[in-house]
């Protein structure tokens, strides 16, 4: 039915398409399908839930919204300065890339002052921060086929900026917006050119046949000439006017991305499903060091005594009764104090038949509550 719908949709209007979906599938899941409102298959290979009879999937929607949304006129048009202030992204074609220049030498100085503590000497990484280089980018790009599915003991692929990233504009953009990590957006355009030049240098890049050596000076024009070794290393192709149809075609085929789909020949095996080669593999070492340590115990947490404001505690909890009877420091305390402070504390903590609730109804610790008792009996905060 869904396949049939897709064929029909190619020629049907959007309204007719929705009607078809409603009639075609019907029932509880009547709005589920793999065809979008534009008549094409979903971009991710998944299900979509067009609004039919004021419902999308199990959810009701208010049909007035779709009818009137174009007349909602919230917000305002930004000024040219506001747009310029925020529209700072940098694209592979150079959109947003500022003029400026910086040398490898200057870059190394900035790197040693602001970057080395996290990214390590010559971008070697460490402390959980990513490496910026592992050597010659052109050589390391060839390691991307070293998949350990073929040889578990082999060296795996090396994915760093030089060997893996498809576009150099990403590097400039990310340094400008996100670095240095604790003080982002603090570098000038020239400083970012210098750092970019340094990262190209430690990855042993060539630009237009020229080695990015220690004397190299990078600028906008040169940066746009950088050809990344792994520029063709990604799928699906997302460039150009028909990108979305290419993405759609890619995800229409489950084998492209490691999925199994029953509508594309996968099997829902219920018995005798396993090859003899399959074994139970236990954790070998594994990753531990959970913070805080794993526990499902229901007990009281370890508490730390916190000093309280005694007068504030008295005012909030005790005053409504004690202001008029046994007030702080009052002579009325005399006979009670004669029994000894231990007895007074005990009565205060556990309550009395005379009407004193345990700890006055507070959840203060014993030692904290005793400081309140001290105040009420003496009129002084110790």
């Amino acid at each position, binding site marked *: 039915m869904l396949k049939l719908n897709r064929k029909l949709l190619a020629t049907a209007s959007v309204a007719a398409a929705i009607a078809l979906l409603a009639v075609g599938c019907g029932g509880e899941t009547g709005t589920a399908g793999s065809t979008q409102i534009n008549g094409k298959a*979903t*971009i991710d290979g998944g*299900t979509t839930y067009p609004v039919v009879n004021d419902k999308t999937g199990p959810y009701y929607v208010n049909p007035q919204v779709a009818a009137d949304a174009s007349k909602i006129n919230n917000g305002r048009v930004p000024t040219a300065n506001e747009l310029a202030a925020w529209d700072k992204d940098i694209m592979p074609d150079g959109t947003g890339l500022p003029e400026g220049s910086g040398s490898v030498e200057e870059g190394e100085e900035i790197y040693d002052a602001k970057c080395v503590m996290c990214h390590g000497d010559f971008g070697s990484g460490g402390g959980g921060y990513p490496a910026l280089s592992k050597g010659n980018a052109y050589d390391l790009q060839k390691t991307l086929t070293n998949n350990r599915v073929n040889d*578990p003991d082999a060296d795996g692929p090396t994915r760093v900026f030089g060997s893996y990233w498809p576009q150099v504009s990403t590097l400039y953009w990310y340094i400008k917006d*996100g670095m240095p990590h604790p003080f982002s957006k603090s570098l000038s355009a020239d400083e970012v050119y210098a750092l970019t030049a340094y990262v190209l240098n430690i990855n042993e890049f060539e630009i237009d046949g020229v080695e990015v050596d220690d004397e190299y000076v990078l600028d906008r024009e040169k940066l746009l000439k950088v050809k990344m070794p792994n520029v063709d*290393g990604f799928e699906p192709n997302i460039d150009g006017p028909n990108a979305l149809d290419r993405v759609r075609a890619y995800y229409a085929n489950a*084998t492209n991305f490691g999925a199994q789909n029953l509508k594309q020949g996968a099997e829902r095996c219920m018995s005798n499903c396993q090859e003899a080669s399959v074994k139970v*593999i236990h954790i070998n070492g594994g990753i531990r060091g959970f913070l805080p340590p794993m526990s499902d115990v229901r007990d009281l947490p370890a508490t730390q005594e916190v000093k309280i404001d005694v007068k504030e505690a008295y005012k909030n909890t005790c005053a409504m009764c004690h202001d008029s009877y046994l007030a702080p420091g009052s002579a009325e305390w005399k006979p009670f104090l004669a029994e000894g402070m231990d007895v007074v504390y005990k009565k205060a903590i556990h309550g009395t038949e005379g009407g004193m609730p345990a700890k006055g109804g507070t959840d203060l610790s014993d030692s904290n509550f005793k400081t309140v008792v001290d105040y009420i009996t003496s009129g002084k905060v110790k």
Partner: protein
Amino acid sequence: MNNQKDLNRRDFFRKTAAMSVTAIAGTSLVSSNAKADDPAIMHHPAWGQKWGDPVTKNRYGVPSKYEHNVLRRNTKLLASGNFRASIAVAPIQESMGIITPNGLFFSRSHGGVAHVDPKEYRLMIHGLVEKPIVLTLEQLKRYPSVTRTHFIECPANGGQEWRGPQFNSIQFAKGFMSCAEWTGVYLKTILEDLGLKPEAQWMLAEGSDNSEMGRSIPVEKVLDDAMIVWGQNGEALRPEQGYPVRILLPGWEGNLCVKWLKRLEFSAEPWYAKEETSKYTALKPSGKAVQHFYANEVNSTVTSPSPEIDWKDLKDGDIVEIEGLAWSGMGTITAVDFSLDGGKNYVEAKLKGLVLPKSWTRWSYLHTYKKGDTLLLTSRAIDDAGYIQPTIDQETTIMGVESVYHRNAVETWEVTATGEVNHVQMRTPGGIKNA
């Protein structure tokens, strides 16, 4: 109706009688009828003999202090930058139903959790639209809202275990995800007013945080179910989830659901942002990597038992519920298969509760426990787009073991003879050689 009630009553009396007989016969029921009285019953507990807290306490409620071990957790191996570019994972071993409490929702950021002043909050939408706009938070929230329940999952959930099991913990093996009820506005509702130009293929979503996290999103998703959200489980988003505003792309990589959202720009070409090139790309054995890997595929796990909450206290013959979660970013869960032998043989488990698109879905299977049995608990989910979870061998044959992201092969817990629960994997040692 009455008849049914009578039947139920009769059934109850019949069962009670049977139980009494068994009790007299001296089976295990007698031992649970032991003479020693339970002090928890025989004494007034302290909390029942004094005032409780006044209603004026905890104006914003907090969990019972006894629940202090139910926490998001970290490990240094999944962190850089002093836990600023890092992840805190959700304790899904303790999760109930399909909603994650806001304080336990997994938290991932690339430059730390930003604290945005809502008075200074602005959202700019521009690029290939007829009319660019800037909105304050109040203006944004004036759009007609929708509320939807969706999971958000980091595509690196389980990503440390392509080459073998690593975490003897469901919190770390599967807790890079959570599920909540989100409130916001469909982006397509706002675009009705703005007018999208026909050449627009992509939208950049950019955050205002330290890392200015940005991702390229195809307009297809924007015009389908993408939401700009400010509400999470009935209250404002938590700072960890992007307060005051994030974008939500139901079912797609958590990383695409940009937090602390500041700017949406439409363009004919994609941006190649850092987190869609250097990371969040899946390297295959061919040496090519999948980029723009949007939807989290169909997946499932057994949540009870788990390595954290074992079966050591079960007695022989106990009837116990094996419970789990299933989810798919590509649709709605239609079935979950369950295996006691690591995926050799399956039976269909039962779905329970609400079954919603691109949401956590609960499944259940009642099992009679036999003391001393060794079990291999495996679940396998199917969604309404036809996707079924692959075996580990099936997935690694196509994707290899280097992709980090989007690992959705079936997962197995081993129950040992003593009731311990361990994370294991069912796979061909050394892997399937790639053609």
